């Protein structure tokens, strides 16, 4: 399956998020994992031609990842 650069960026960000989850305390990993999953799946409906939105969401996701990556953040609420 050929993927566009943008698609690969999204998947790479998802990988980074899932790697970041592994750094969290083991009892709270499920919370972080489902948070990351829901953040991505929330925007599943965005058209793949809507480059502007996708780029914006990637930037937003990276910023969010930077914030949540902080080892000081040990747990996350699960909505």
């Amino acid at each position, binding site marked *: *399956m050929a*993927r566009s650069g943008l*698609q*690969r960026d999204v*998947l*790479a960000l*998802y*990988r980074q998020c*899932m*790697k970041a989850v*592994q750094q969290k305390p083991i009892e709270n990993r499920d919370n972080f994992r489902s948070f990351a*999953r829901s953040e*991505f*799946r929330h925007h599943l409906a965005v058209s793949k031609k809507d480059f502007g939105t996708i780029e914006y969401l990637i930037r937003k996701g990276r910023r969010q990842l930077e914030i949540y990556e902080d080892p000081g953040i040990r747990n996350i609420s699960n909505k």
Partner: protein
Amino acid sequence: MFRTAILRSARQAARAAPRCQTPIARPVARSPLFQSKQITPTAYFQAVRCYSAHAGLGKDEVLGRIMDLLKNFDKVQDTSKLTADSHFSNDLGLDSLDTVEVVMAIEEEFSIEIPDKEADAIHSVKHAVDYILAQPDAH
């Protein structure tokens, strides 16, 4: 490639001199700088600590572990479709994000790191098994 060549020469040297040490030698920490100097078996033997032989991974074992991992993955609902030839998205109903998670679980299971580019190419159980079998570091 290089690693297998080294191991093979080490094994031969060990066979020639059975008293030397255990047949298989696994270096503790090998830096690329050192590697080039250790081509001769004698020098190689002095520079390493010997551990027990690495049996290598069999195809069945790799397949079994990957299948177990998929069985326990919460996104795989229909485990009856899980076979050695299952395609992640076509048979198991996983999307690209789930596939990323599966590949990461495989990385963890076999304690290897799969670069993004190769991770993107893994789409089926068969593919994953072949990839793991091709990795000398997987265990």
